[in-house]
């Protein structure tokens, strides 16, 4: 029997396996990927973000999609344009990815592998030959149909009787009100790449089902009919494809006796969208990072991967007993807030519904330019994320998704944990890892305040029942604040007092804003001042340094408000993920106070808009200048460099000159 030795063995040649093999081979590790050949059943259409596509292949594949529309049965709809999406044939994607891996030096074995123990995997070719594979690292990427089945996806192509389909539609079928345990169901419609006049419909359920695939498809089509009558007369244009799914994700299952489990085999599936490719590719990347980081130490690589997975992904079936209820709650919140432009809900919507949203690629893995000073803090900030997500993931995956995705939307330089960690260096020592719990508590409190201040009474729609938007925002806020309190108590009970005082101050300032001044800057100033102060105090900085950092934090908060206004005025994406009108309505914009009149985005035209922009820019630059001047007084270089990067990143919109 032949024996083959390699650094890394990747079992499985699906999208996760081939991506991992490519990345590892690219980094100079000898890599073998073993699995069956591409099959006919792989011929279905998938939707993925362009950043995910770029990780898989450098070729131009598939067909770009401009808009993603999301409907909640007939009750509500929402969507995104310019979401940067592409629809591909899975077979094309797999073949290109495999070619790329081989071109980079990964060796591909076609056949079937059985693992006896970690270092001795037996490989059978189609011809019946056997090879023993010995590898230092093993990656399991055997797909979602190998785990315990907790659901099913089925797909089919149809001729579409309308004008050429140029968008992606996601219909989230309403949970059955008479059965709180009814299965989640989502239906997706994509234009078939390379086939004009043809659409691809896929139906996903993430609950165990005994339904025939064809019947599941019919249920999905019936749901589509309720949204749009054109789906009534669809003529099939291909066979029914179906696959079993597992959505039973738990971070701990990603390490199986030292082997790194990635892709569909982890159960990482978004039950709202049926989407799994972004997570598959992202998990492959995390595994490749961990292995190349600890090439000689498989145990350390496994641990590193487990940490990375824990702070990156949130599943919806982590506590299976209540999974259906948690799904229903999230569905109700999403449906009830589909047209709500409030930051908390906008972030939640994006995190849960946008493909790859809650594992936003690009954002967190390549956050900052090489040489960015905040990279020194990366391990600390990552630890803060891990603690923050762990605090909410099991009870409230919807909220955990926001926490996880927020890491991707802003570069690390803008994170409150970065502010806190950098300020703690001001006394001359690196942040104590024990303080990750404090950094996490700061971030959870901020998100909690965002939820609590976001609550407006919904227009009573005349029906009975819970006011989902305000009920969920209040409960999420309370939950986040309580978890923050618990983290603080665990790290150091002495910190409970400053945290309580911070919360009281925020409530006070926000009340004054609402009842008197209309100016949000003191509130945001206090939001940013606290992490700077507490960091400095914990890092044993001198009294004068603490005073400097408190001022610095306040100016950063003010700069943040003006920067948000500038982004809104320029029609750019906001860091709070809301529109200018949304922020004005929520009282997060300084413009009504600055212009001394109630105002909306559309009313801001011509000279008025110009004045608003000029005023905001001048104020933002002033705040930045003052903050940077303050930093010059800091004795510690690390703190100074990281905080000045934070400040300039915050004020970046003021340096960006094009207007709308």
């Amino acid at each position, binding site marked *: 029997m032949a024996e083959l030795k390699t650094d890394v063995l990747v079992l499985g040649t699906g999208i996760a396996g081939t991506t991992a093999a490519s990345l590892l081979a690219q980094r100079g590790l000898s890599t073998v990927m073993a699995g069956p050949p591409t099959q006919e059943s792989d011929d279905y259409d998938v939707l993925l973000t362009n950043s995910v596509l770029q990780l898989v292949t450098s070729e131009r594949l598939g067909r770009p999609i401009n808009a993603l529309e999301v409907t909640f049965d007939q009750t509500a709809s929402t969507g995104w344009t310019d979401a940067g999406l592409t629809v591909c044939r899975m077979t094309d994607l797999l073949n290109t990815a495999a070619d790329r891996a081989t071109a980079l030096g990964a060796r591909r074995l076609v056949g079937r592998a059985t693992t006896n123990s970690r270092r001795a995997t037996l490989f059978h070719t189609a011809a019946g030959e056997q090879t023993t594979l010995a590898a230092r690292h093993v990656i399991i990427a055997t797909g979602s149909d190998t785990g315990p089945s907790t659901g099913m996806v089925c797909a089919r192509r149809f001729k579409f009787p309308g004008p050429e389909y140029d968008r992606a539609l996601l219909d989230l079928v309403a949970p059955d*009100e*008479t059965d*709180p*345990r009814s299965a989640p169901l989502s239906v997706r419609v994509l234009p078939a790449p390379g086939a004009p006049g043809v659409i691809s419909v896929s139906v996903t359920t993430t609950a165990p089902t005994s339904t025939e695939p064809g019947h599941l498809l019919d249920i999905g089509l019936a749901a589509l009919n309720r949204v749009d009558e054109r789906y009534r007369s669809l003529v099939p244009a291909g066979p029914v494809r179906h696959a079993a799914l597992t959505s039973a994700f738990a971070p701990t299952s990603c390490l199986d006796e030292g082997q790194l489990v990635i892709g569909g085999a982890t159960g990482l599936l978004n039950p709202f969208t049926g989407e799994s490719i972004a997570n598959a590719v992202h998990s492959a990347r995390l595994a490749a990072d961990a292995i190349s980081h600890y090439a000689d130490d498989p145990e350390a690589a496994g641990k590193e991967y487990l940490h990375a997975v824990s702070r990156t992904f949130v599943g919806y079936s982590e506590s299976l007993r*209540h999974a259906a*209820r*948690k799904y*229903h*709650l999230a569905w109700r919140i999403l449906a009830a807030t589909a047209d709500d432009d409030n930051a908390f809900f906008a972030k939640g919507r994006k995190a849960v519904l946008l493909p790859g949203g809650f594992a936003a690629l690009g954002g967190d893995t390549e956050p900052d330019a090489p040489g960015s000073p905040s990279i020194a803090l990366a391990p600390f900030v990552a630890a803060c994320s891990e603690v923050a997500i762990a605090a909410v993931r099991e*009870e*409230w995956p919807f909220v955990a998704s926001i926490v996880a995705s927020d890491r991707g939307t802003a570069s690390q330089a803008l994170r409150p944990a970065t502010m806190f960690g950098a300020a703690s260096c001001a006394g001359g020592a690196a942040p104590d890892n024990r303080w990750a719990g404090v950094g996490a508590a700061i971030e959870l409190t901020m998100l909690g*305040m965002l939820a*609590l*201040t976001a*609550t*407006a*009474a919904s227009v*009573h729609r005349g*029906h*009975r*029942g*819970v*006011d989902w938007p*305000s*009920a*969920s925002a*209040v*409960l999420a*806020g*309370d*939950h986040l*604040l*309580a*978890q923050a*309190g*618990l983290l*603080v*108590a665990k790290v150091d*009970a*002495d910190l*409970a*007092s400053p*945290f*309580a*005082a911070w*919360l*009281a101050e*925020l*409530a*006070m300032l*926000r*009340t*004054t804003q*609402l*009842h008197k001044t209309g100016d949000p800057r003191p509130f945001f100033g206090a939001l940013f001042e606290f992490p700077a102060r507490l960091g400095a105090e914990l890092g044993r900085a001198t009294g004068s340094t603490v005073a400097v950092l408190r001022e610095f934090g306040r100016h950063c908060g003010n700069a943040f408000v003006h920067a948000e206004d500038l982004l809104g005025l320029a029609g750019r994406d906001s860091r709070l993920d809301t529109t200018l009108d949304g922020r004005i309505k929520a009282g997060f914009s300084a413009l009504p106070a600055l212009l001394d009149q109630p105002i909306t985005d559309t009313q801001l035209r011509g000279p008025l808009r110009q004045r608003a922009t000029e005023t905001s820019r001048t104020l933002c630059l002033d705040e930045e200048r003052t903050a940077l001047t303050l930093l010059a007084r800091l004795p510690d270089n690390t703190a100074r460099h990281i905080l000045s990067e934070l400040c300039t990143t915050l004020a970046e919109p003021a340096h960006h000159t094009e207007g709308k």
Partner: protein
Amino acid sequence: MSGLFARDDSFFFEVSEHLEQVVVAVPEELRAVVLTLVTQSGKGLRRHLVEVCARFGRPDRAQLVRLAGVVELLHLSSLLHDDVIDRATTRRGVPTAHEVLGHEAAVLAGAACMAGAAAEAADLGPSVSTAFAVVTAELARGELRDLERSYDTSLEIEDYIDLVRRKTAELFKLCCVLGAGAAELDHTTTDRLATFGVELGVAFQIADDCLDLQPDPGGKPAGTDHLLGLFGAPTLHALRVGTPELATLLLSPALTVDELPRIRTLIGEAGGLAEADRLAHHHFDRAVEALGPLAATEPGSTLVRLQDALWPS
């Protein structure tokens, strides 16, 4: 909750006075509404528990008042937020905070009370502060479970008890633990009182579920939680053993207050009230059982007499 218990009136008023001092931490614009809640905060069962549990030792009176204040502030905070969540328009006949102040202001008032309670707890030392943090987190979990289970007509009674334990009983437990702490009681006694608090809290909530279904002499419709899709112990039992008509009614999107009398009848016919009453007594018995030898003491017998508060004769 009606019914009487042998409360220490002077302690009751000392706590009220203290609360009036503490709420200066609440923003001025919101203070009046919070003070209204303080002055009409019912019979003071929670502060009574703190005081009685401390009678097993020799507590410092001033500290005991502050500890009771922590519990009451936390309770106020959850009342303010609950009224927003439940869309309640009145509480004890007075318009709710969000009706008076507006939505966000009422939410901020709740947050300010929470902050005030946390600050007091921190000032009273690490053990108080940690116990407070743990209970706050349990309360938030309980509220989440409560929202998650809305419209669930087949909620298992064990899950319901679990929810009640977090949402209501943890706060009762905190009262007992803080009282015990102020009296510097030993572990065994503190554990007994903690269990007493939890079981009493569960019994209290289920008795309250039953009370909620009694026609109100003031004309307030009984059982309005049903409109929110929130079903208590009597309803859950009736759903399990009674006619399917009940579930159909409860899940109907067109359900209004007009159907509530019919719902009450169905629950009664299915024996829901009797079964819930039995369950509440069962938990109260467990509470007394947890006291063990303490039940025979003076403060112990005061705790046992709380039965009259739950089930006024």
